[in-house]
Structure formats: C-alpha cells, structure tokens
C-alpha cells in the first residue's frame, strides 16, 4: 500500500470490518471499515468524542465491540483477551508502574512471559539504548520528566517485540517544542523497526508529521483515509477541510461545464473551478460546496477575483493573514508571504483578492 514503509517479517496487517460499538443507545463506533498495511504508520485523527480512542482500545482488546470483526495477520482476535493479543500499547498518561524502576517496568512483560533472567537483562538494556534512556534505568517514573516517561512507556511497549504498536495520544501531556522533537523520534523509530503502528491523536500537525496514512474520524465514523498530502489537497467533506488545516467555504450552483472546468454561480459572482477526477461527474444546476485554502489566496487580480473590505491584516513573521468581507457578507481569510516591496493592506480598505481555478475543491456538506 505504501512503498516507503520497509516491510519486515515482524510486521502484520490489521483488517477491521463492520465494527460497531454501542454504549446503551449511543453509537461510539459505527460500521468501521479499515485496513492497515504491514509496517504502516496509520493515525486515527479526530476531535474528542469522535470514537478514535474507542477504536484503538477495541484493537487492544479493552473495548468489546457490539458487532464486526478485527483480523490481525488474517486471524480474528475478537475473542482473544488483551493479554494474549501481544500488542504493545502506549497509554494516555503512559500508565507506568509507579512502584517499579524504569528497568523493572521494562522487565515486567518479559518476566510475565517467563523469559530467563539473563535474557531479560540483555533485552531491557538493548531497548533502553534504543530510546536513549540507559542512564535512567534505576530511576522511578515520578523522578522523570514527561518526555522521559513517554520514552519509557514506548520502550516498555516494544521490549517484548510485539508485531503491532498502538499509541493512545502519546504526545498529549507534552509541551509543543518537546512534542515536535518526539514526533520526529517516533517516526524514525518506526522506520527502524518496520512494525505496524496505529496512533491516536486530535492534533492534526502530529498526524501529518508522523503518519504514512491518516484516517479521519468524526461522530463514530471514519470519513476519509489517505496520505496526509492527499487529505489536505482533496478533503472529501467540509468537516475535513476545516479540521485538517483551515478553509474558506463558498456555496453555489453549477451553471456551465466544459471539459476541464466548471462555472459556478455564487452569491458573490461567477467562479471558475478546475474539475478534479476525485470529484466525479458534475451536473448542471447542482448545488456544490467549495473549500478554498487560505494560502491559495492572492492579493490583486486573478482568474477568480472578489472585491472586498479588509477586516483585519496581521503580520505573523513568515506570512501575513488578511481577513476580508465581500458586500454579500462572505468572509475570506488569506495567508500569504509578503515580498519585500509589498505593503500589508490597511484595515477598512477596499481591495481585490483572487485565486486560481485549480485552488478550489468540491466537498460534501456535513
């Protein structure tokens, strides 16, 4: 599925079919279909309450699904107890054992499996080196920083060589700078180990930075699965266009279709839209919703141009953010790099903003 991931014999695929979970009348998971390729890094991304953690815990075995199946390496694990599934799990908040040293935390899964003592020591040492924590082996969890605790949790989940690693908001408790470093580290670790990783997060940046593919969830469903770039460039629904990065939205009716473009009549005028394969066939008169990324907006004339009043113009260092409103009340946010000679528009001024026909994407309304 993804040529970039090295596939080793250790990696296993996961297939989820028709998976649902109800808590009383509330559907936490609704008919989930998902395939994770061997050695893939897949992230379940969604707002809180979208069901992403419930899905991960179903794979781990802590949530009993109401319907559907989970196949790992072709075999159903639905009736296997968590301790026999043999998946590494990094929990939210890490769930390290407070009464054990780092070394003992790592030794635990090996001890439970009856591995001989000498082998345990060697394996623990090797895994600690993998996450660069050898010097903290005899510390207790509460004596470690958040980032160090996260690495211990990671090491403990990997020390018994599980085929699959499940991560539940692994960066949740860390500050932004540290998060960025650990994202890179985790990605490198994934490349090195070549195992299947399933990660859960609500942070779109984290999802984009680490994942081979992202499955976007909302209200118990998977809405779209794809590579980060594809999801960003061609979001399927309005929700995704807004959740993964920012978007402006325009609504209109198809008034003319040519081979490569459609003319769409909106409140604010005619808009040229370059047709995409992924959008399927359009028919005349149909109502469409267009998503438009802020960074696609330029100041001045373009194939699509709107006259508008500047509501705010903010300089943010590497780019400027300009918010304008048209006469019809449509708000458009643009983000653009300013060339040296260019001036930031003045608030209240009348200006023209524009974009290329290829910049818009037709999305499904939610």
């Amino acid at each position, binding site marked *: 599925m993804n040529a970039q991931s090295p596939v080793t014999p250790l990696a296993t695929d996961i297939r989820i079919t028709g998976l649902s979970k109800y808590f009383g009348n509330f559907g936490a998971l609704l008919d989930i279909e998902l395939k994770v390729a061997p050695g893939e890094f897949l992230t379940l991304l969604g707002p809180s309450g979208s069901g992403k953690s419930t899905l991960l815990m179903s794979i*781990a*075995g*802590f949530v009993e699904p109401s319907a559907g199946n989970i196949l790992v390496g072709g075999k159903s694990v639905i009736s296997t*107890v*968590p*301790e*026999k*599934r*043999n*998946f*590494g*799990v990094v*929990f*939210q*908040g890490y*769930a*390290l*054992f*407070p*009464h054990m040293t780092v070394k003992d935390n790592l030794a*635990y*899964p090996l001890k*439970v*499996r009856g591995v001989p003592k000498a082998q345990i020591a060697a394996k623990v040492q090797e895994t600690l080196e993998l996450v660069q924590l050898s010097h903290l082996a005899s510390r207790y969890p509460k004596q470690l920083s958040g980032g160090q605790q996260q690495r211990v949790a990671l090491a*403990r*989940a990997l020390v*018994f060589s599980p085929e699959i690693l499940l991560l539940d908001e692994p960066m949740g408790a860390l500050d932004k700078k540290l998060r960025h470093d650990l994202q890179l580290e985790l990605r490198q670790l994934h490349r090195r180990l070549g195992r299947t990783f399933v990660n859960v997060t609500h942070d779109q940046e984290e999802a984009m930075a680490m994942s081979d593919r992202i499955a976007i969830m909302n209200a118990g469903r998977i809405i779209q699965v794809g590579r980060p770039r594809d999801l960003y460039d061609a979001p399927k629904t309005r929700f995704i266009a807004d959740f993964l990065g920012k978007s402006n939205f325009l609504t209109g009716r198809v008034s003319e279709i040519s081979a490569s473009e459609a003319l769409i009549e909106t409140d604010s005028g005619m808009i040229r839209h370059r047709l995409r394969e992924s959008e399927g066939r359009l028919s005349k008169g149909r109502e469409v919703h267009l998503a438009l990324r802020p960074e696609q907006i330029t100041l001045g004339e373009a194939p699509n141009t709107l006259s508008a009043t500047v509501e705010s113009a903010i300089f943010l260092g590497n780019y400027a953010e300009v918010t304008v409103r048209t006469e019809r009340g449509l708000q458009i946010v643009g983000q653009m790099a300013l060339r040296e000679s260019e001036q930031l528009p003045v608030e209240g001024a009348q200006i023209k903003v524009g974009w290329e026909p290829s910049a818009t994407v037709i999305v499904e309304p939610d």
Partner: protein
Amino acid sequence: MENRSSLPKVLVITIAWLVIGFLIAPMFVTFPISLTSERYLSMPDGEISFRHYQTLVEDSAWISAFMDSLIVATGTVVVSLTIGTLAAIGLWQIGGRPAQMLRILPLLPLIVPPVVSALALSRAWVMLRMLDTYPAVIISHSILALPFVFMTVSASLESVDKRIVQAARSLGSGPFRSVFGIVIPNVKAGLFTGGLFAFFVSWDEIVVTLFITGRNVFTLPRKIWSDLRDSIDPAIAALSSLMIAVTIVVAAIYLTNTLLKQRKTPKE
C-alpha cells in the same frame, strides 16, 4: 502570622485544650489506681504495688481473654482486608456513576447503630447455630471493620492511574496477576492503615460481642465488662494502663518513621 491573638482565636485554643484535657484526664487516674496495693479500686495510699500487673500475667482468665481477642482481631484483619480491598479495587475499576452509587454499600455498617447490628447478628448466628463461635465473632467484627478498610484503600487508589491495570494486561499478565502484582503494591499504605483500623475496631468491640458470645469466645473487652459488674478489680486499671502504654509506643514509632521518611525524600 503577625496577627495578635484575637478573642475568637483564644477561645478556639482554650476549647481545644479543654477537649484534650477531657480526653487525657482518665489516664492520670487509671495509672495511679493500677499501682494501688489494695484489692479494690483506690488511689495508692503511700504504698506502690505491681500486684495487679502480676495478676494480669499470672491469671489464666486474663491470658485466655487476651488470646481470644488476638485471634478474633487477627481474623478480622484478614477477612475485612480481603473483602474491603477487593471491593475498593472493583469499584475503582468500574468508575463513574454506577461506582458512586455502589460506594455507599460497604459504608452501611457505619450508619447502622451498633445495637441494631448486634441484634441482627445475634439472630442470624442463632439461626445458623453458630452463636458463640470464633467464625461468627470474626465475621461480625469484619462487617464492622469493612467501612474503614474500604475507605483507606479507596483513598490510596485515588492517586493511582486506573490505566495501570490495562497496561499490565497489554504487557501480557492476566487480570488476577495485574491486580495483585501491580495494583496492590501501589496501595500498601492504605492496606496497612486499613488493617490497623480493622484490628482496633475488633480489639475494643463490646456491643456486638456481648450479644453473640457466651462462654466459648471471651474477648478482653468482654472480660473487662463482666469483671466490672462482678467486682471492682484494680487489674482492669493495670490492663488499661498497659494498653495505653502500648498505643503510645506504637504511635511514637509510627510518627518517628514517617518523620524520618519525610526528611529522606528530597523536596521537588
């Protein structure tokens, strides 16, 4: 801190000292009486004697009462600690609203007046033909001690991340091993305090014991009770003094231990 003593403050301090005095005063009577040379309850009249302490050690009735209390209290610790801990861990794992509702159940013995418990238990043991047996007394005391164990263990669990049980299971250990190998070591302090409470609940329990024991099980409080009714033997004062002394020694050891531990752990 620079506030001068205001009237309410003085009042509070005075009341506090009065209460402390009220609680401690009996000790200053009990101890001298235990040293009297007479055969009845009296202040020593110039002459100090340890004969009543000697009675305690030599009289087989006192020794057997002491042993009975020890057996019952130890049994109570084992039974109430097992049930109370399991209940606390179970409700901790369930969590949420259902656990909040069920939490009241193990606390019920605290709300029911001892006399009511005593009456109910004595009827029950009669029906089961177990009146005046060790198991009956141990189970009865365990019911009374259960709330204390449940509360101390629950308090300890409060600071433990619920997910460590799931973590242990994801690492390959079964539910039983996860609870005993991972949860229990993290609530040792709660278990110890709960066990101590259970021991003392049983050690000085009299109301229920009076209703459900006869000749066979004769605990220390029971012995004190019947001796006080029959005769007024200064041995009771000697016993009381001893128990106070043991309590003070245990408390002193416990306090110094915690103080030393606090000094050892570096401040963060």
